[in-house]
């Protein structure tokens, strides 16, 4: 099966083509089955190949398709790499992708753009698979920009709404800022190593000066910041919630936004060599994690809460990468994919039940009406809050343990972040499902559980969120950490230091206790005292108001980048182009005409002019002769 790994991206491509060309003529259920079926086929192949790889001595397989770009010494084959890292991502993408496709069949059922939706979604999966399968940076870049395109198309899926279109465009443009960094990084890799294929580059990484490696690592990281929504390039992700909810689950939580993590893990040798780059990654990660978590505290839109939570969790993963805990971060990518996809799909089910309402101030008391959604979301919330033995607990704990070795301060900040996470997640849960219903009567009447095409994916994801921890059980419990062992061949210079067992126990205990305390606090606030989210913005306290408005970061970028850019364009256009440069050009033209009209006199037989010019000429000659002598 490994030899046929190209089938994995091929199936979604075929699905894309069928739905793209014939989607409008197809029956909705046929369209949906083709889309979901193509992902299922990919999943089956991916599983078979994964199993084969587990039994294989050789852990990295290169599958060459054709020669893509060649220019002198620059040779870029269209080539796939199947190894433990890419095989794991294939499973996440196709597995969760399949569940979300199934869910979408129910969720998008009444939408007129049904087949268009699946066209885009299949194309997205295709590009995402290219991204993780490529054996060189440029194929990764193809997938990278391709998923950006699909994200653009899907955020702006309801293209009649201007706000959605703006959000889509913002996502694409901000991602392109990162992409430029990535592209320059790829070029620097080529110039440094004479190749951009992973095997060639990584083998030579140790022979190059650290400063060059740092430049490469930082340029690549700019790309990761765009795609994985890190400060300051994160503002597009909350806006991206304009897209249909399954899109938020698949693209903006489980897969695409973790591409930056994938890239850093793939390039881990650079970051292991360059301490500077690692510090930057860790700091960016913790700042993002903390920053987004505080914003999450005061959001009222259920999807926005989850969006900021995603930004924050991504920051957490980068914190892990920055301290060298590569396999732990991949573990967190995996568990996060489970529980965040679950939470988004659950939110979609809530929105579905509420007839499109997303504001938790208008919800409340839903747990009796939509039981499956409630129970699954409860499990997801516990998982993300880090309560054992749910999956999130294990992955988060592993990262925090590594951070503790690295820096106590970062560990404290990481702990604060996870406490904030538990708090805003339970705030959301209580606000949505507990208390009295705060919506309209007709909404209350309309409340209903979603169809089984939507609830079954929720149940599966809930099971994964609960049990996913077994993939990486703590080693100091003397249990097998599969994740760690699986990724060993990919991590070139693993971090050797191990904490004493009693410290690990202590850290773990602290984490659990603090999470429990925060949940208790949230319970007191939102259940016992029934504190409700503030209705109107004006009623917020000054600090809260700043946080509520997302620290005015959007406004800041608007004033410092977007407006000046427009102004610059106007100045270049009106002043430089039309007035100055063209003015000079036309001036030359006029000067020529002017000289011509004077010279013309010499040709017109005007005796008077001839006499005058003769006199002037003679005078000039005389004066000139005297001057020279």
């Amino acid at each position: 099966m490994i030899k046929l790994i190209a089938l994995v991206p091929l199936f979604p491509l075929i699905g894309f083509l069928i739905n793209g060309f014939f989607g409008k003529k197809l029956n909705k259920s046929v369209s949906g089955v083709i889309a979901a079926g193509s992902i299922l086929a990919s999943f089956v192949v991916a599983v078979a190949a994964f199993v084969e790889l587990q039994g294989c001595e050789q852990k990295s397989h290169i599958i060459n398709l054709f020669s893509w770009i060649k220019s002198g010494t620059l040779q870029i084959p269209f080539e796939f790499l199947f190894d433990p890292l890419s095989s794991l991502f294939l499973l996440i993408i196709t597995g969760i992708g399949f569940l979300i496709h199934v869910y979408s069949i129910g969720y998008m059922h009444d939408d007129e753009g049904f087949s268009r939706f699946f066209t885009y979604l299949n194309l997205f999966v295709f590009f995402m698979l290219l991204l993780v399968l490529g054996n060189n940076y440029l194929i990764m870049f193809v997938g990278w920009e391709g998923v950006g395109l699909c994200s653009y198309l899907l955020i702006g899926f309801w293209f009649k709404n201007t706000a959605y279109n703006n959000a889509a465009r913002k996502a694409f443009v901000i991602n392109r800022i990162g992409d430029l960094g990535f592209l320059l990084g790829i070029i620097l890799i080529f110039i440094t190593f004479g190749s951009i294929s992973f095997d060639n580059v990584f083998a030579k990484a140790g022979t190059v000066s650290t400063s060059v490696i740092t430049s490469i690592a930082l340029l690549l990281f700019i790309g990761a910041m765009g795609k994985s929504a890190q400060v300051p390039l994160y503002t597009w992700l909350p806006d991206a919630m304009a897209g249909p909810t399954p899109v938020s689950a698949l693209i903006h939580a489980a897969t695409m936004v973790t591409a930056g993590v994938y890239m850093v893990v793939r390039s881990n040798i650079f970051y292991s060599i360059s301490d500077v780059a690692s510090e930057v990654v860790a700091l960016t990660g913790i700042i993002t994690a903390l920053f987004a978590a505080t914003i999450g505290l005061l959001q009222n839109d259920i999807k926005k809460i989850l969006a900021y939570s995603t930004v924050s969790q991504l920051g957490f993963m980068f914190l892990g990468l920055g301290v060298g805990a590569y396999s732990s971060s991949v573990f967190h990518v995996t568990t996060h994919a489970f529980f965040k996809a679950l939470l988004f799909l659950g939110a979609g089910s809530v929105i579905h039940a509420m007839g499109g309402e997303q504001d938790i101030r208008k919800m409340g008391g839903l747990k009796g009406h939509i039981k499956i959604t409630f129970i699954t979301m409860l499990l997801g919330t516990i998982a993300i809050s880090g309560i054992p033995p749910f999956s999130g607990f294990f992955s988060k704990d592993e990262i925090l343990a590594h951070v503790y070795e690295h820096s106590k301060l970062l560990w404290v900040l990481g702990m604060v972040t996870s406490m904030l996470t538990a708090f805003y997640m339970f705030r959301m849960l209580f606000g949505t499902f507990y208390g009295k219903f705060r919506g309209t009567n007709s909404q209350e009447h309309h409340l209903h559980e979603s169809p089984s095409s939507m609830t079954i994916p929720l149940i599966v994801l809930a099971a994964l969120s609960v049990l996913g921890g077994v993939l990486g059980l703590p080693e100091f419990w003397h249990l097998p950490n599969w994740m760690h062992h699986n990724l060993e061949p990919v991590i070139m210079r693993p971090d050797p230091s191990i904490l004493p067992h009693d410290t690990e126990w202590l850290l773990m205990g602290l984490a659990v206790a603090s999470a429990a305390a925060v949940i208790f606090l949230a319970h007191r606030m939102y259940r016992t005292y029934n504190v409700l989210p503030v209705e109107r913005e004006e009623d917020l306290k000054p600090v809260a108001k700043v946080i509520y408005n997302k620290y005015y970061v959007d406004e800041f970028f608007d004033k410092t980048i977007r407006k000046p850019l427009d102004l610059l364009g106007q100045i270049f256009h009106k002043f430089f182009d039309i007035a100055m440069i063209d003015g000079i050009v036309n001036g030359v033209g006029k000067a020529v005409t002017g000289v011509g009209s004077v010279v013309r006199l010499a040709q017109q037989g005007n005796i008077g002019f001839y006499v005058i010019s003769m006199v002037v000429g003679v005078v000039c000659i005389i004066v000139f002769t005297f001057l020279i002598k």
Partner: protein
Amino acid sequence: MLTALLIGFPLLGALIVFFVKGNAARNFALGLSVLEFVLSLVAFAMYKNNPACTQLSFNHTWVQSLGINFSVGLNGISLLLVLLTTFLVPLIILSSYKNEYENPSSFYGLILIMQMALVGVFAANDGFLFYVFWELALIPIYFICLLWGGEGRSRITFKFFVYTLAGSLFMLVGLIYVYNHTNVEGLKSWAVQDMYNAGKSLTADQQGVVFWLIFIAFAVKMPVFPFHTWQPDTYVNAPTQGTMLLSGIMLKMGTFGVMKWLLPIVPLGLERWGNTAICISVIGVVYASCIAIVQKDFKRLIAYSSIAHVGLISAGIFSTTQQGLQGAVMQMLAHGVNVVGLFLIADILLRHTGTREIDKLGGIRGMNGNFAVLFLIVLLGSVALPLTNGFVGEFLLINGLYQYSAIAAAFAGLSVILGAVYMLRSYQGIMLGERKDNHLTFGSLAATDKAVLIIICSVIIAFGVYPKPLNEMAEEGVKILLSNIK
């Protein structure tokens, strides 16, 4: 011989078309240009088979006493550009079917004459012949713009004509200067290889002067900042087919000229002034992109985006690296195809809605989904998304430029971001949202428009996914070029 045929055939075609009355003229023109395309495919296949084949070169004495020969030939780079020309001309003719031009026989005849001159420019192996074709190309496009252009055309076309002609005269002086230094057994020669040798025998100072004399003509033609102010008005005012000829093919005369008639002649001049040329090219990239952002007329926006694209091409050429030059060739091909698509889209908008003003359009996505998809694909090619034809060139260009200077690459790379800004903004304004004008309707596309757009979109994707056939030839051509510069 085949090359001479490729030049002569359009001229013959033009003569036929001149005498065909009415709209039949365009059918003749289309048929003949398709035949020409087939001929060029034959040439392509022959070259692929055997790059040394003699059928592609032709030499006939013209003015013996002055050493002028009718000497033409095709190799990697020039063959690709001839292929671009012969591929685009039928599409340009086909795209005109919905425009009712007065006096069609002259219009289409002039397009074919233009094609002859363009092929001649790319194929000429004699300096004098090159100059003759170069100036010859100006005449048909001058009349096309003057007779079928929009409002204010006489002033604008006059400026265009004088501006480019003035540039060309500098080039003529430069070429004659080099010619005067040729010495083949006591005789002077215009042959390209002799010109190369003569140019290299000059001192660095002399080469520096010749560099500017020749470069100005090319800089005006492309155009690179700050020689570009004739371009936006001319592009906007010319009839759509004229704009397509100008931007799709004619500007490649400038970039091609730099490759064949500048770099190998004055390598020392390049050493001294190449940095300046890269500077103005790169400034032009950002400058024109910023201006494109604030344009209201979609056609003018494309005009400025074209300046940005060509600035990057020019910068890549002057980096004189394998990747930079090869990227330039690939981007010339891609830009030619994409810009024709974009100008056709501008024309379709105008024909269907009566305006190209971005602010007045909107909501077309909902009225014609197919058009929206085709537009999007062309747009993606233009912003160089991977797996479109634009990406291969852009990646190689920035790569080559980076080897020359990392800062220049980063600065020019801003076009990656700015291009997305102005293209997506205009796409949103034109296609998405609700329609701003309730009377706006947008029916289905005419069959000819649809055919042209589908062909263009297919090329965009096909050569983005599998650029190898073109890329291989560009690679070989650039290797030969580099060996001539060294």
